[in-house]
């Protein structure tokens, strides 16, 4: 039997991110991926979830200096995507359960996909 796939995109504000993610987790959704898109000086971050081929995306728009809270407290496996967000885009993600502090993906150039290509590192959690 073929299952029809549906995709929805829901815009989410930074202050509501964790609450929305928690809600999807409680509804039985699995985390598929977290991905960033450069939208000209800022990032669009897609948090993708799936349950029975129903594909939901929470879309967060964040500036390059905006600190984004980690969802790894809700989805343990999110650390791979959040470290990737930091290492490739330079997005400061706070509270990652396994924070590689910029060493997860080794690139010749720091933050190669960053919209600003700035040198500083504000993601280092202390």
């Amino acid at each position: 039997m073929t299952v029809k796939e549906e995709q929805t995109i829901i815009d989410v504000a930074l202050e509501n991110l964790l609450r929305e993610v928690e809600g999807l987790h409680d509804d039985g959704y699995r985390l598929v991926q977290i991905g960033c898109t450069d939208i000209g000086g800022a990032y669009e971050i897609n948090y993708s979830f799936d349950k029975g081929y129903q594909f939901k995306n929470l879309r967060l728009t964040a500036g390059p200096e905006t600190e984004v809270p980690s969802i790894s407290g809700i989805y343990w496996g999110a650390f791979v995507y959040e470290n990737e967000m930091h290492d490739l885009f330079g997005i400061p993600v706070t509270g990652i359960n396994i924070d590689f502090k910029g060493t997860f993906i080794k690139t010749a150039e720091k933050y190669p996909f960053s919209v600003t290509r700035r040198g500083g590192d504000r993601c280092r959690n202390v």
Partner: protein
Amino acid sequence: MPERIIVPFGPQHPVLPEPIHVDLVLEDEKVVEAIPSIGYIHRGLEQLVQKREYTEYVYVAERICGICSFIHALCYSQGVEHIMGIEVPDRARYLRTIWSECSRLHSHLLWLGLFADSMGFENLFMRSWQLRESVLDVLEDTTGGRVIQGTCKVGGVRRDIGQEKLDEMHRELDPFEQKCRDLGDVFLNDETVKYRLQGLGVITKDEAYALGATGPTARGSGVAMDHRETGYAAYGDLGFKPVVETAGDCYARCAVRVKEVYASIDIIRRAIEEMPEGPIDVKVKGTPDGEYFSRAEQPRGEVVHYLRGDGSKHLARARIRTPTLANIPPLVKMLPGAQLADVPVVVLSIDPCISCTER
């Protein structure tokens, strides 16, 4: 309390053809914690989408991986086709399905060989790769390429398979399946293989789902999830049921792949029998303007190509989430409790593809 030491596993290791590093925290010979690290060969292929026309990027997408290359091209092409509202001809959908399943077959046979090698079963390794060669021969005959096929494009496929070749492939499927079943019988029933794999690297159904496991890693733990169920390409016409095992150990993940070899042969057989006549592509006009999360089932699990077009001939963004990246958190949970000598077997049980991960 035993003293804890850290043993680095990789990035260069005899069982790893590609570099991934895991710091293993050991108490005596027992793993108590595993910390992964990737990124040794990150290629930035996602960024290249802004410098290649959307029709040309299929070639780049195909080169993300040397094993599941065709399915990357298919997933990317499907995404662009969805954004542009392109309906692919039926014959192209069936041809895409045949080549996808050939990719799955040779990937699983490759993995079975590597897995046997990691257990020290060299004869089984050679038998698996011998069978894989015949699949690569079919890919070479029908596409011109063993590793990179170059046949998928936006709007359909570039090459057809003639009826004579389809008949020949169909005739060869029965003896090939028998050889695969003989091989699979050793993986599934040999006492030494079972002794080595059963109860090793266990991950429960709930853990696999919660950690975002995908492909045989998830299905080996009882998560009945396979994107072919959504009916992309010709899977909707041919019908499909995921192969699922429930034990969640290395043996279950191996059993899923062995049985998926049989399932792939069956899908190819039915696709040949039901192959529709007609064109293999449609003319593509215009440029993509919109976004879509295209998903497909690779040998290692679900792949996601997020594509966004802005109406120009270059896509604004391609974000590719490959299955191995999703299977790293489950691997981190599988390793604690294993003996150091079993680590290569557990790591290989997720079929890590670092080429995909370092897209």
